[in-house]
Structure formats: structure tokens, C-alpha cells
């Protein structure tokens, strides 16, 4: 008979962190399964294989890092260490946060950074300050954003499109319709059948899992609710300011990593404040930063950075929420009211600073230049010497044959001048027409000046004018000047 001592209590509710993490893992795998399903239906088996490779390499990397750490640094049995350190959760979240066309090596580097730097250097599970997965993703997005896997197919994502093309705000119905159609409208955004980071697209699935996790007491409802609530309200403010409808805040909730971040990342207890009041402030902060980064930073994704920034503020929030919790309301309310006021104010200010961008179809350059105007007031003979070589009379019309240097001079060996016939009516003292006799400049470029759109500009030009202008041909400004120089020479001859 042995009587063992143990400080009270000697009773336990049976909950365990291992079980909690297991359930969380299962939920994340459900999201991953959807990602595989979407990649298969939208892009085919190639994408599925690449996605599996990404997940596999992240998992292996995470586990290898921790095993090495356990052996070399912590000097513990690696299996025991792994069981209570849960590296796979970080790996899975990280992969779900990256787009499908991410290459394998950035994911491995990101995972190493997440596990070793963001987690183990800080003392391992429970003492890390930054959400490891978010830190790892930040590394991937900052340094490897451009390295995409070539054989993997993907398309435009809603957030990248609205950020890149529309400046994060749309207030015209036809523009909106065109934009939304790419992603199957609101319903498409809700069900996630569009491109985006692997795990972030299917909002409805993420929310259902969130409800499950709340019911199971694995995450605190306050974090996702206040996070999403803040994003909604702030986006509503921006939307109202710009006359966009209710779709706008809803769009913010349905796209990018907002739902995924609110349910799976911002709720990470290790990097949250421990009090409920603190969690609320944390979540509001995340929402605010997400919206600001999105619309003002014009980055497609603010979620990641908002969580990392708020992680940094967690100790400060903790300090503000100290004391007896049922007296906390009084203590925290002013702070909370302050945070809300600042959030709304900032967002309003920011709304005034952004403007909707309506994308224009790229204009084909016009044939005649809008900027290069050739005037009789200018003397072109210096650069493009011209001389009259012949003169024929036809009634009141006089036809001057003029040689003028063009593009060929200075560019080609054995350059020859262009030769023109400039017809001038001496009775009305106006130019009748200008024609080529011989073209010597670049073929298919300078010879566009033969086009009547250019040549007809000289018809009716008075020889007594000192400042009549014609527009040069956009692609052949030098040859155009050669023509002008010839016309000037003829006019000078006609004036006598």
C-alpha cells in the first residue's frame, strides 16, 4: 500500500492539449481536402500533385526541424518532444496560406523560419510571441513572391484583382458586375470555387469549421466574431463613403485570408492575450490593420501582417487587462471605446484618400501624333535641307519638284534625299497637293507619310501663312519633317 502525495486538486476534467490540437488538425485537413478538390476540378491532377508535394515538404521540414532541435538543443526524446509541440499544425496552416503556384523551396524555407526562428528560438510551444505560420508566410511572400512554379495553372484571385486593377474600391454597377463575374459572383466567393491561397477560398466551409471549434471550446468565439465584425464595419464605412453598396463589406469578408485568418490564425491561443477582454481588443486590432493594409497598402493581403503586428502588441494588451475579471468591464471599456473610435476615424480618413480606378481599354496610338505639330513658323531646312530642282506650269498651278533630306541621313550609308512634287495654285496662293516622287527613308516606317491622312493636311494651306501647322505621323516624325521642309522650300519659291 502506497500513499502518494500530490497538491490538490486530485481531479481533472479530462481535457488535454493533445486532444485539442488533434481536433484542430482534423479541421485544417478538411480545409486542405477542399483545396485538393478545387484544384482537381478547376486545374486538373497536375495541381493536385503539386499541392500534395507542397504539404508533404512542409510537414517533413517541420518535423525534421523539431526532431533535430529535440536532440541537439532540448536534449529530449524526440518523439515525446514532437507529441507535445505540434509542429504539423504550423506546417499545415502555412501551406494553406500560400497560392498553389508557389514553388517547393520557398515553402521549405518558410517552414524552417516558422519553426526554428518564430517558434523554437522563442522557447518552443507556448512561449512563442509570433504566430509561427504567419511569420513563415511573411517570409515567403516577402522574398519569394515572384518565384512561381511554371507547370502549375492558376488564375486571377479576387483580392489581387481588386487591389491591382480597381484600387480596392468599385462604385459603378457595370464595373462591379464585370469584376464579380470572374469569380462566380457572391455565391462563388462564398463557396470558394475560385483561385486564391490554397485554403482561404471556401469561406462557408471555414465558417462552419469555426462554429464547430467554438462549440468544442477549442477557440474563443470572441476572436473571429470581433475580427470579422471589425472588417465588416470598417469596410462598410469605406463603402458608404464611396457610394458602394452592402456588397463591399461582404466582399471583404468573403475574400482573401480574412475568414481563414479569423478562425485558424488569430485564434491561436499561444499568441493571444489570455483574458477575454484582451482577446476582443486583439481581434479588433487585427480587423483594423487588415482593412488598412488592404485599401491603403494596396496589398492583396493584410491578414497575415495584421496578426503579426497584433502579436507584437499582445504583451501590452495583457498589461492593460490585469485584475479581477468581473471588474474588467469598467476598466477595459474606455480602452475599447478608444480603440473603436480610432479604428473608425482612421478608416474614414483612409476612405477619403482612395479613389476608384476604372480600367480603360489600352488605346491604340493614333496615326497622327497628338504632340508633334509641325508649323510653318519653324524652319526645318536646317536639319532637313531641301532644294527646288524643277518647276512646271499647268494653268495657274505650278508644280515644284523638291529634294529634301530625311531619316536616311545620319542613319544609312549612301543616303538619298526624298523627292516630292508640291503643287501650288498661284491664283489662290494655296497648296493644292503634295506627292512623293521618290521615297528614300525606312520602308514600312517613313513611307506611312504617303498616307493621305497625313498628306491631305497640306491641301489648302495658304502660302502667305506664317504659322499653319500639320500633325506629324506618330511613327514617322522625322520623315514627316522632311515633307514639311520640302513644302516650306516650295512655298518660299512660290512667294518669289
Amino acid at each position, binding site marked *: 500500500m502506497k*500513499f502518494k502525495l500530490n497538491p490538490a*486538486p486530485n481531479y481533472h476534467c479530462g481535457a488535454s492539449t493533445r486532444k485539442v490540437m488533434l481536433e484542430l488538425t482534423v479541421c485544417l485537413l478538411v480545409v486542405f481536402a477542399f483545396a485538393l478538390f478545387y484544384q482537381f476540378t478547376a486545374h486538373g491532377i497536375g495541381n493536385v500533385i503539386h499541392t500534395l508535394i507542397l504539404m508533404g515538404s512542409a510537414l517533413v521540414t517541420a518535423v525534421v526541424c523539431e526532431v533535430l532541435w529535440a536532440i541537439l538543443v532540448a536534449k529530449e526524446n524526440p518523439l515525446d518532444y514532437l507529441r507535445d509541440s505540434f509542429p504539423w499544425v504550423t506546417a499545415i496552416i502555412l501551406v494553406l496560406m500560400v497560392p498553389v503556384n508557389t514553388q517547393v523551396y520557398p515553402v521549405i524555407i518558410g517552414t524552417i523560419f516558422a519553426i526554428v526562428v518564430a517558434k523554437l528560438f522563442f522557447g518552443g510551444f*507556448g512561449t512563442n510571441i509570433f504566430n509561427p505560420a504567419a511569420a513563415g508566410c511573411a517570409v515567403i511572400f516577402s522574398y519569394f513572391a515572384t518565384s512561381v512554379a511554371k507547370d502549375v495553372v492558376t488564375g486571377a484571385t479576387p483580392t489581387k484583382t481588386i487591389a491591382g486593377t480597381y484600387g480596392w474600391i468599385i462604385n459603378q454597377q457595370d464595373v462591379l458586375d464585370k469584376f464579380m463575374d470572374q469569380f462566380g459572383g457572391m455565391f462563388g466567393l462564398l463557396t470558394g470555387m475560385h483561385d486564391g491561397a490554397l485554403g482561404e477560398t471556401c469561406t462557408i466551409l471555414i465558417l462552419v469549421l469555426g462554429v464547430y471549434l467554438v462549440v468544442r471550446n477549442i477557440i474563443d468565439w470572441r476572436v473571429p466574431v470581433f475580427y470579422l465584425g471589425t472588417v465588416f464595419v470598417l469596410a462598410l464605412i469605406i463603402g458608404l463613403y464611396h457610394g458602394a453598396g452592402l456588397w463591399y463589406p461582404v466582399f471583404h469578408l468573403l475574400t482573401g485570408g480574412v475568414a481563414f485568418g479569423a478562425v485558424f490564425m488569430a485564434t491561436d491561443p499561444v499568441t*493571444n492575450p489570455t483574458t477575454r477582454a484582451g482577446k476582443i481588443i486583439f481581434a479588433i486590432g487585427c480587423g483594423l490593420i487588415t482593412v488598412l493594409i488592404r485599401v491603403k497598402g494596396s496589398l492583396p493581403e493584410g491578414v497575415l501582417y495584421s496578426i503579426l503586428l497584433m502579436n507584437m502588441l499582445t504583451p501590452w494588451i495583457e498589461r492593460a487587462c490585469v485584475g479581477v*475579471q*468581473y471588474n474588467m468591464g469598467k476598466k477595459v471599456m474606455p480602452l475599447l471605446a478608444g480603440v473603436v473610435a480610432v479604428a473608425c476615424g482612421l478608416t474614414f480618413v483612409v476612405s477619403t484618400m482612395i479613389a476608384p480606378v476604372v480600367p480603360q481599354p489600352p488605346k491604340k496610338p493614333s496615326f497622327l501624333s497628338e504632340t508633334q505639330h509641325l508649323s510653318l513658323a519653324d524652319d526645318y531646312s536646317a536639319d532637313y535641307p531641301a532644294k527646288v530642282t524643277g518647276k512646271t506650269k499647268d494653268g495657274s498651278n505650278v508644280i515644284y519638284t523638291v529634294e529634301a533630306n530625311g531619316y536616311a541621313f545620319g542613319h544609312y550609308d549612301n543616303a538619298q534625299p526624298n523627292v516630292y512634287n508640291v503643287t501650288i495654285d498661284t491664283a489662290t496662293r494655296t497648296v493644292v497637293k503634295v506627292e512623293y516622287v521618290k521615297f528614300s527613308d525606312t520602308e514600312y516606317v517613313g513611307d506611312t507619310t504617303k498616307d493621305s491622312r497625313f498628306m491631305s493636311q497640306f491641301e489648302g494651306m495658304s502660302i502667305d501663312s506664317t504659322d499653319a501647322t500639320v500633325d506629324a505621323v506618330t511613327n514617322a516624325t522625322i520623315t514627316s519633317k522632311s515633307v514639311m521642309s520640302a513644302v516650306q522650300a516650295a512655298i518660299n519659291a512660290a512667294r518669289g
Partner: protein
Amino acid sequence: MSLFTGPMRKHVDGKKELTAHTEVVKVLAGEKVYIPLISMGSTKFEVLVKEGDAVCVGTRLAVRNDHFTVPLFSSVSGTVLGIEKRMHGSLKLVEHIVIANDGNYTKKFDIEPLDYKTATREEIVEFMKNSGMVGCGGAGFPTYVKYNPANKIQTLIINDVECEPYITADYKVTEAELALLVEGVVAMKKACDAEVAYIAIKETKKDIIPVMKEAVANVEGVEIKEVPDVYPMGWERTLIYQVTKKRYDRLPSEIGIVVNNSTTALSLARAMKTGEPIVSKMVTFSGEALANPANVLVPVGVPVGEIIKQLGGYSKENVHIIAGGPMMGKTINNDQFVIHHAMNAVTVLEAKEEKEIGCLRCGRCNDFCPAGIQPVRINNAGRIKDIDMLEKLEVARCIECGMCTYVCPSHIKVTEGIRRAKQVLAMAPKKGGK
């Protein structure tokens, strides 16, 4: 659910079925009984008998003589053998008066019965003091102190909640002597001049509630209050908040409330009727490591080991033997400690080791802490001896209810951390120097 606080309480598996419906076992004392000279941690007693004195059941043996007055009485008849130091249920070495039991249980009570119906308020309070009435919920706080006539009291709450897991002693006592309980409640109500007395009982005790309601049907100003089956519903603060939705700073009398345990009320009624002080106790012996869990009616001063032997012994090799219930009771490293007059349970559980892992910072301990403080941060601040933080976190409010350890998914011994933090704070130089 409140925005900033958790539930501050939680349903725990009560394991009441182990003993709620088994026969009460009457255990007689062996050759010797040992009356511990301790009351709420104080061992300042004036001993009134000497070696060789003949005593009866009800003979006054000693009186606590510091700022509280608590007399102790003999639970058997026989001869005083002297004083011996033994391990007590509070895990301290304490002096015990040893009495050789003659087996006759001759009764001769040193206190006079009192008819509460004709007695004045002051007389009832004086009687509480002389008869050694103490809180029978485990702590043993002297009852008369709460009835100080200087306090203006509106509400008396009789605590029949019994929220500690495994314990069913109050339930058994209530079931057996309901009429006497009601008399005790009426006497207490008179003693504090309250307008109303509530007898609080868990709503899950479906079988006994109708009977109790009937018993108080014709008693003016006494009502049955059903309360949820959560822990620690039997703690004063939690119970008062449940019944009145009021919180207080230090003592319930601030808001005109007195709380007393039901067995205390019943013992008071018995003493008033016959002059018999608390000489025997209904004690729940329960837990998975006992062969036959049961409620035991036993004289005060009998070693726990003797009782367990009579019940059929242990069923496991490595056990925790706990004086009290598993949430708040202390484990003792032998079974020779005795039943004392404020004790209501002995719990024997199989000893298992659980590996502690890193704190998840999940905040569950905060959410369920009935005192509303932040155990996780107190634990951490205690480790690094951050005195300033410990004060801000109001560690003194902790009642060591055990909830924080109970809920911790990482199996951290948070409650023990809080105890350590309290010590750190106690040993720190007081602010302002000197």
C-alpha cells in the same frame, strides 16, 4: 455569458452515485480515540482534562482560546490517556487528546439544551459558541462569529449544495433528519434576524427536492432554492451570486447575508434539543480506490485507517488518500489521521502521473476561476517572483478551489502555482519599506 468574463464555474462529474444510495455504515470507535487540538489552523487551546480523568460522551475537553472560542468535546466515554502528537488531516503534526474508549458511550452533556422558540437572539448566538458549532462544510469556521448582532442581516442562505465531487454526506444527513434541519434553519434565521432563509440545493437532486419543499411548506420565511449543478456552487461567493446576483468585497455580511452549511444547522438543532454537541460525523468514504465506498456515521477522533479497514479496505496499490473531496482536500501520506469535527469526507483515488506540457495560454483557467482572477498569469508571475504583478492580479482572492488545475488541458498544476505565488507575495518585503 458575459463579454469579459468566463462562466466562473463548471459542471464537474460529481461521482455522487458511488455513495448516494448505499446504506449508511455505522462505525464504532476502537480502543482509543484521538481528539485533535486544532481549529482552522489554530492550535491555541486550553486543555480542561488531565491524564486519568474519566470522561463521557459530551464532556468538554479543551477550548480554543485565541480570538475565537471553540470548545471540543469527547466523542466516547472512558479515560483520558494523555496528549500525543499525530499527523492531522491538514497535513500538520498536531496535538491530540487520547482517550481510552470503554465502549459504553455513556452520555453526559456539559451543555444545557435551549428552546430557540423562547430564547432571545443573543442567547442563541451564545449557545452556538458554547456548543462548539463550526462550519461542517470542511473549513470549520466558528458559527457564532457570523451571527454577531452588530451585523444587519436580511438573508440567510443554508448551503446544502455539496459541490465537491464524491461527497454525499450532507445529502445523507438531510435525507435522514430533514425535520431537525428545518428547525436548525429557523433557529439560525432567528439568530441573525434575517427576513428570509433559503436552503440551497442542487437542482439535480430530484428525489429529495419535493420532500424538502413539503417540509418547509408551512414554515414562514424559509424557502428551497434550486441551484445549478456546477462547481464551486457551494462556495459562499458563487452561491450568493447565484441566489442574489450580488457580489461583495470581503464578507457576505457587507451585503446583509449569512451563509451556513446544512449539517451545521442540523447539528445546532440537535444540540439545542438534547445538549449533544458535535461528537459524531457523517463522513463520505468514496473514490475508485476503495473496495466499498459508503457514507459512514462515526465518532469524532477515529483514525481513518480503522474505518477503511471496516469498509473492506483499498482496491488499488498506489493511492491518493484525501482528507475531504478531490478538489480541495489535501493528500496525506498515511491513513492514521483522524475524523475531526469539521470533516465530511475522505476520498481515495488511484494515483496516476500526468505529464505537464507547455501552457497553451488558452485562458480556460481564467474563464472558470470562481474568484474571477487570472490563474495563468499569477502562476507565471509567481515563477519569476514579480511581486508588483502579483499584487495587481489580486492573488489573495484565490480560494484554492482547484478549478484552474482541473480545467487545464496542459495538465499544469496551476492551483499549486497560485499557492506558491501566495507564499512569494507573503515573503516579499512590504511596500513602503521597513
